């Protein structure tokens, strides 16, 4: 009995001991909220395993996120643009970059175009305050010595959530006409190099897809940003969003932006310098001369100080029926006016451009299919004050694709699309018009992409697309073949061979323009001095590219991306002199019978009656090779630096070096020689119109010095405390030479320094100081346009 009692005592003591032990393990010695981070990290597994999930969440908050995870999230972001499905950027088969909302906001960039300076491979020049020319890898100003239009980027496709925002009348994107602003952007994804097999025409130098924010919170969330600075710059953005029943969410946003120019003068080529706008009105030889306005303003430029003024409003909604079926619907409207580079053949370098549009976009993801329908209806005047460049337009886009996955490793993605853009100047007809009616560019496309991965290491992608246009009649077949090999988790190699083409553009295909430089005199002059014609047989600009890429993660906090590329571009086109027609009188001189004086062209100083110019394909080809490197580095959670640069060369073969005007001069001489020969042989001067003219045929090989041979940047974000964020960015390019048809200028090499300091006043608001081009480097960035200047502003951000 005694022994039993002893045993019971022993067992009880043991039980109490173990009970106490476990209590010690389970219990924490103080309130969870009072734990420091170090104390949390010292807690044992046994203690933690006894805690409720609720308490664990609180302790995890105190412990914070791991650096490894932070490195992975920041450096190796998810991206969809290269494969049309989500993958980490390290594994992306193409030259790909992502810029997140946080990076854009931290950088202080004032527009989408300026934000792209943070991405490798971009050549970005500020034309006038707030207006930018955006190029991927260059191939710009081809051919040199032609219209300013050919120095603009016409071969990069820009999309908002897959909806095209493209200017089909001249090619390229009018950045001011994008309805969304930085507050709306979730991230910007970019592919460098041809991607037409995935996205269709104009994805020649690259593709930019701007992905907008969607609401995931059931709480009404709102954000507002106001920024004011020198040049009377004002930027206001606001957005509200909410999710209902987890199935429907909406987002409503609006933006307004304005900034004045750094100067009010505009460059006049005939005078070789900048002149006040009032002077331009009075001496304009090619437009209707206007009386000088006493206050120094102008008919063409009533407000010459204004560089940019725009507003936009956006509504988007998602309806998630279930995980297999969801719809995204967005509606946007915008209105903009800028003074920026001119697109037509004028004697001044800048024009006032207005765009107003409304767009609607519906995307349906149903199981493995994605169908998108979008429609844009708008108005634009590319040169307000001048006749002939005002249009109504609409752009319709439909595409549907299916992602068929076989055995988890093979993706087969067939697709079909129909695109139509209509530009119409019927409502704005004057004596001179670019199109003289409604013109349409439309095409059908079929595409197929196959993506197969062997043993999770070796990946092959083949994508082809067939595009059939109303004009030109040829069918185009952009393609893309990719092989990538994952050496291990830290190194990946890839090779790309791809081809892409532009779409036709209205100006190239359908120009139907009579430039009446001499008044109509019945029986004497036709009044038709220069006839511009489009060419529906033009072959579309096509680029072939070979690329080798290498990505490495030598350490968890460093990601390196290297691209070697070579491209060959053909079917380049330009406005070319076709024939010269001379009116001859009995005395053997071209003469205006009304005045009794010979008719002289003010530019060529040659007598003429009329000249025919038209858009033509050139023998010219462009060959480009280069290397880009990008190093993304994080040091701890508070310091990030991104360094990138591109070195490249562009060679032009079979370049026709004479400008249109020089060609007209030569052709006029040949017409005269022909006429003199005829006079001598017949004994009578021919009285009437003779025409034709032999165009010189000398071709040469040159370097295209307009694309800078070296450009890149640096982006640094430093967060010394939870309240303070300091960002610095540098963008640089080497010297360039811009050759316009009337003059040549050197764009000096430039290093632009930017800085933003953001201080969080409390959880919901912050104030910031923003300096763009902080050392006030005033060098012109885009030939013959405005001087640059430092821009300094103060801003306030509110989040509720």
């Amino acid at each position: 009995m005694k022994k039993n009692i002893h045993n019971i005592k022993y067992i009880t003591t043991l039980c109490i001991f173990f009970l106490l032990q476990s209590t010690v393990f389970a219990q924490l010695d103080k309130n969870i909220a009072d734990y420091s981070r170090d104390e949390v990290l010292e807690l044992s597994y046994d203690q933690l395993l006894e805690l409720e999930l609720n308490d664990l969440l609180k302790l995890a908050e105190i412990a914070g996120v791991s650096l490894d995870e932070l490195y992975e999230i920041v450096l190796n972001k998810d991206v969809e643009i290269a494969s049309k499905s989500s993958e980490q950027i390290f594994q992306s088969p193409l030259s790909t970059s992502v810029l997140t909302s946080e990076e854009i906001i931290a950088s202080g960039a004032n527009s989408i175009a300026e934000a792209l300076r943070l991405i490798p491979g971009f050549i970005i020049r500020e034309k006038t305050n707030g207006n930018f020319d955006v190029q991927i890898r260059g191939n710009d100003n081809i051919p040199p010595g032609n219209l300013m239009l050919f120095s603009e980027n016409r071969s990069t496709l820009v999309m908002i959530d897959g909806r095209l925002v493209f200017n089909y009348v001249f090619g390229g994107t009018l950045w001011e006409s994008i309805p969304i602003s930085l507050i709306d952007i979730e991230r910007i994804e970019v592919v460098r190099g041809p991607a037409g097999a995935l996205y269709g025409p104009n994805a020649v130098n690259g593709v930019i897809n701007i992905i907008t924010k969607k609401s995931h919170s059931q709480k009404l969330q709102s954000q507002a940003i106001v920024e004011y600075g020198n040049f009377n710059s004002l930027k206001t953005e606001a957005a509200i969003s909410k999710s209902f029943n987890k199935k429907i969410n909406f987002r409503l946003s609006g933006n307004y932006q304005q900034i004045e120019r750094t100067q009010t003068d505009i460059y006049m080529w005939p005078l070789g310098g900048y002149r006040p706008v009032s002077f331009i009105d009075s001496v304009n030889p090619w437009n209707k001369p206007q009386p000088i306005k006493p206050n120094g303003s102008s008919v063409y430029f009533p407000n010459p100080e204004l560089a940019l003024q725009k507003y936009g409003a956006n509504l988007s909604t998602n309806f998630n029926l279930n995980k297999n079926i969801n719809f995204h619907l967005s509606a946007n409207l915008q209105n903009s006016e800028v003074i920026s580079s001119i697109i037509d053949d004028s004697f001044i370098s800048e024009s006032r451009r207005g765009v107003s549009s409304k767009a609607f976009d519906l995307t349906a993801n149903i199981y493995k299919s994605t169908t998108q329908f979008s429609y844009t209806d708008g108005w634009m005047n590319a040169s307000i004050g001048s006749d002939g460049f005002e249009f109504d337009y609409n752009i319709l886009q439909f595409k549907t694709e299916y992602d068929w996955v076989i055995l988890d490793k093979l993706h087969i993605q067939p697709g079909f699309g129909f695109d139509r853009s209509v530009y119409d100047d019927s409502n704005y007809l004057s004596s001179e018009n670019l199109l003289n009616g409604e013109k349409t560019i439309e095409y059908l496309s079929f595409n197929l992409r196959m993506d197969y991965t062997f043993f999770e290491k070796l990946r092959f992608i083949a994508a082809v697309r067939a595009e059939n246009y109303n004009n030109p009649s040829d069918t185009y077949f952009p393609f893309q073949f990719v092989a990538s090999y994952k050496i291990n988790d830290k190194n990946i190699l890839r090779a790309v061979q791809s081809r892409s083409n532009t779409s036709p553009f209205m100006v190239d295909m359908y120009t139907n323009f009579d430039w009446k430089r001499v008044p109509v005199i019945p029986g004497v002059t036709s009044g038709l001095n220069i006839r511009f014609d489009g060419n529906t047989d033009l072959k579309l600009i096509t680029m072939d590219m070979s690329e080798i890429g290498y990505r490495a993660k030598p350490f968890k906090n460093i990601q390196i991306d290297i691209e070697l590329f070579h491209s060959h571009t053909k079917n380049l086109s330009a406005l070319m002199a076709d024939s010269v027609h001379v009116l001859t009188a009995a005395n053997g001189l071209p003469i205006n019978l009304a005045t009794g004086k010979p008719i002289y062209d003010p530019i060529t100083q040659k007598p003429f009656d009329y000249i025919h110019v038209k858009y033509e394909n050139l023998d010219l080809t462009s060959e480009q090779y280069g290397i880009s490197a990008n190093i993304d580095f994080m040091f701890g959670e508070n310091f990030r630096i991104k360094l990138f640069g591109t070195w490249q060369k562009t060679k032009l073969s079979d370049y026709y070096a004479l400008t249109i005007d020089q060609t007209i001069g030569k052709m006029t001489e040949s017409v005269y020689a022909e006429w003199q020969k005829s006079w001598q042989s017949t004994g009578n001067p021919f009285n009437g119109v003779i025409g034709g003219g032999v165009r010189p045929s000398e071709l040469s090989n040159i370097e295209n010095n307009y694309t800078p041979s070296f450009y890149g940047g640096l982006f640094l974000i430093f967060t010394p405390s939870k309240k303070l964020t300091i960002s610095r960015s540098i963008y640089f390019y080497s010297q360039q030479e811009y050759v316009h048809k009337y003059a040549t200028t050197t764009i000096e090499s430039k290093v632009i320094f930017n800085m933003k300091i953001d201080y969080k006043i409390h959880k919901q608001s912050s104030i910031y100081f923003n300096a763009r081009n902080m050392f006030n480097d005033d060098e012109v960035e885009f030939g013959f346009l405005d001087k640059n200047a430092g821009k300094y502003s103060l801003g306030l951000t509110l989040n509720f």
Partner: protein
Amino acid sequence: MRKLKFIFVVLFFASTIAKAQSNSMFKALFIYNFTKNIEWPDSYNPSNFVIGIYGNSEIIEELNKISQRKKANNKTIVVEKFNTLQTISQVNILYIPITKSGQIKEILNHVKNKPILVITESPGLTQKGSCINFVLVKGDQKFEISKPNIYNQGLKVSDQLVELGISM
């Protein structure tokens, strides 16, 4: 001076390692707690409670520590690493590290109609079908939870767990 520099470097890396471990540790602890709040169908009855990890992850080590100390649903916890998608079969939980998040479509296709709780750690994956997704909200470790996605996998979830997470 050199000593000081050395100490600074050691302290920096020591704090880095400690942080890395803490994060994986908490995720592993969360996963253990999820097992108490998720109900697998009786018909799905592997002899052990298997937590599968697709590819490399520091969480494997942390889950192994838990498996030595605890059981889940009265079964021994077995932590199994899978290098290829095809080899993933009878698991209760499938953890997709961030490095594999790009394959989410293929992974979900592979586990379709199987009572497997899919846990991920990359933004936006609950919208793509993940059941539970670890996310950072203003630097704090949280988890998104999708009740419909969990049901679609043939599992049941307690309301308590849904309330603790960010319901999607």
